[in-house]
């Protein structure tokens, strides 16, 4: 009987610890994630230190920045990324514009993500009155045109970047909420959530400890894609007079004001577009890696 007395016999040595502190380690263990982090760091640093790194004043309209007929100049030794329609240095504008675009893409988009997730999770879990009211409110917000809200806010308040950020947060959370809501509904039927209920876990504990972690992949998808779309949305809003006003640059409005010129001066659309893409992709890489790192079943994947 001796064999049955001790703990389960095992042919294998105890395995090394895998998680917790491992999340960061696993994240850093992925080359792509590190690459993504590097790009993000690069963008953030160049935005912060734009005055130091930018070759020119972003708003200066150089006399030699335009051809005699008034056309912008393609990339050259002086103007690395070319000049814009007013003869300004595109590179400098991109560097300074990063400041505005980061506020939108990260702060506003992040706020939308947080609000949307909270609303969606709560509505999806507490069905009944709370859920219904929240979801119908979400529907209302969704049915309400964002542009209109923006225009009215702009007319009533003083247009500024933070107003745009506010509008974007107010508008974008809705989509997140919707998707999170439907996923939460489905998650709530899973047995491990029911098990949690029988343990006496409070709803908030269930929501934050057990439902939310399962939503990370959805939230990450929205967060990363949201970067591109919000940065572009900001441009539309600026155009309507709500946000960043000329001559201040943002990646979105550089694209927006030059998009009809994309054949005549492709660099004016390509470079800011590439910047947005790079930022979004970098976040995506990190997001993907983070999601994998948070997901124990992913352990062992390279």
């Amino acid at each position: 009987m001796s064999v049955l007395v001790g703990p389960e016999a095992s042919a294998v040595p105890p395995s090394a610890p895998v998680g917790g502190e491992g999340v960061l380690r696993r994240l850093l263990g992925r080359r792509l994630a590190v690459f993504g982090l590097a790009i993000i760091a690069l963008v953030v640093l160049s935005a912060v230190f734009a005055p130091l790194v930018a070759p020119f004043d972003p708003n200066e309209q150089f006399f030699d920045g335009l051809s005699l007929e008034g056309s912008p100049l393609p990339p050259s030794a002086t103007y690395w990324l070319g000049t814009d329609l007013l003869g300004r240095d595109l590179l400098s504008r991109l560097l300074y514009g990063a400041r505005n675009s980061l506020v939108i893409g990260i702060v506003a988009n992040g706020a939308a993500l947080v609000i949307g997730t909270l609303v969606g999770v709560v509505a999806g879990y507490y069905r009944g009155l709370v859920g219904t009211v929240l979801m119908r409110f979400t529907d209302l917000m969704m049915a309400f045109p964002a542009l209109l809200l923006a225009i009215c806010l702009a007319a009533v308040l003083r247009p500024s970047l933070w107003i745009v950020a506010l509008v974007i947060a107010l508008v974008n959370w809705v989509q997140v909420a919707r998707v999170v809501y439907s996923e939460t509904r489905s998650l709530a039927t899973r047995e491990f959530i029911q098990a949690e209920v029988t343990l006496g876990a409070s709803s908030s504990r269930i929501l934050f400890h057990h439902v939310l972690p399962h939503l990370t992949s959805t939230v990450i998808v929205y967060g990363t894609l949201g970067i591109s779309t919000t940065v572009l949305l900001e441009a539309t809003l600026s155009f309507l007079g709500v946000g960043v006003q000329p001559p201040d640059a943002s990646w979105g409005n550089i694209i927006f004001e030059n998009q009809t010129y994309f054949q005549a001066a492709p660099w004016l659309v390509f470079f800011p577009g590439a910047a947005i893409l790079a930022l979004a992709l970098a976040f995506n890489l990190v997001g993907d890696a983070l999601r994998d790192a948070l997901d124990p079943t992913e352990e062992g994947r390279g």
Partner: protein
Amino acid sequence: MTMMPAMDREVGTLAPAPEPVLSVRDLTISVGQGAQRRALVEALSFDLAPGETLCIAGESGSGKSLTSLAVMGLLPKPGPVVSGGSIRLAGEELMTLPERGMRRVRGDRIAMIFQEPMTSLNPVLTVGRQITEAIEAHRDVSAREARQLALEALEAVRIPEAERRMGQHPHELSGGMRQRVMIAMALALEPDVLIADEPTTALDVTIQAQVLGLLKEIQATRGTSLILITHDMGVVAEMADRVIVMRGGRAVEDGAVAPIFAAPREDYTKALLAAVPRMGDGRGRAASAPTRPVAEIRDLAVRFPLKGGFFGRPVAEVHAVAGISFEVPAGATLSLVGESGCGKSTTAKAIAGLVPYEGRLSVAGRSGEGLSVPERKALRRDVQMIFQDPFASLDPRYRAGDLVAEPMAIHGIGSAREREERVAALFERVGLQADAMRRYPHQFSGGQRQRICIARALALRPKLIIADESVSALDVSVQKRVLELLRELQDEFGIAYLFISHDMAVVENISDRVAVMYLGQIVETGTAAQVFGDPRHPYTRRLIDAVPVPDPARRRAGFSRLTGEIPSAVRPLGDPPTRLTLQDVGDGHLVASS
């Protein structure tokens, strides 16, 4: 009732097997990379002759499921990988077979029944679809024929109202039914090799007997070879031609069934056999003086609407629980037994507050209805539930240790440090290594997960634990230890158990009282001694008779197969079943008048 003719094969003799259908050589499965690499299955070899039944028994976590997954080429990715050895099917090497080739093998030539039926069935597809598609994938049949075959398969595993079940989704079925659906799916195609991973664990004895009978029948008519993974030595004795006993990833003993049962060579095998609970040797415990009941259930009824028709209006109702009353005495064990689908899990869920019910129940002096939030929380602290399907009830993103610590964290018991110590102690007591605390649910075997669930329920030392088939996935050795643990805790802290099981031997061993359920109602209840010693209701008798005996020499000649209408709890709207009245036949031994 008819009896099948006795099998003509002699017990214990090996059918001559010149050409094995399946041949496994030096199979090694390991996990991790580089220095972290460790083997989960090591150098396992066996042959499977046509028509042979090979039982793989052994300790929980010894690599049984991994081995069968490896044969199917379905090891999870990322995860354990085959790092060596060969697997040949009728001479063809499967290890090197491309995916397309494997696809044709799977389902058709080798079929597998998975261990965890809840997660193994697709929640969004109807049961019927999931069976027919397997048929359609390999047979050139029309949709109608496929449906017909599927229906036959379902009827073969004795699912009541098979026709209607075809249109139901897995979550509408009881655990045992899901298991039978899995079996039907695998059997529908009559494969050459059938790998059944704990196929009858979730089944009550009567169904188990029928399913085993069915397996034998198919084996006899089709010459199917069977790999049966089970820890139930009764089943082994009943079914096996040959046995492999595994432990820690290695085969410790291997041979024909009779000699092994008669004269086990290895200590482990000996211990395993010794640990098997046997009917009739546990007298239950002496009926102690009736104490104040910890749970009182009065007229509990649960109905589920069955949707149908155009707008998804309910067309009928499942009377899963049709008005039952019972009490769980404090510090004692009440066992709920009964065939699959009779409403045991539903009763448990109602008591745990997971499904809406009618009737009244009170636990630990609190009524279950109209509670405030803190009252409900307090109630939940007193009542813990262990779910039938352990994998589904563990949050896959948490480490086992954290999962077990969870209830303590919820109720704010102890510091983090204390909790950790307590978790470690619990792990030890349920027979899990300390390092298991750091692993995630998917990295455990079925039995190990079951133990995590048990540890979690014990963490709070509640007044009542509802244990739904909680030891059925455990190998006998661990099962024995867990049962001992449950009993110790009961003695120590006065925990009462509502124990749901189909394993009559276990039930007889651990119960103070037993209630026998049939179609949502209780047909007989009394002390273990009363019910097992003097079963009055015919249904009870049938249950007891169906229990397999862990002795190949006493193998039954055949299995009873029920004929006629399979009873069902589905009834038209507004037509509740008539309530049975229970009569006292002496000393609180209640029997339904039939």
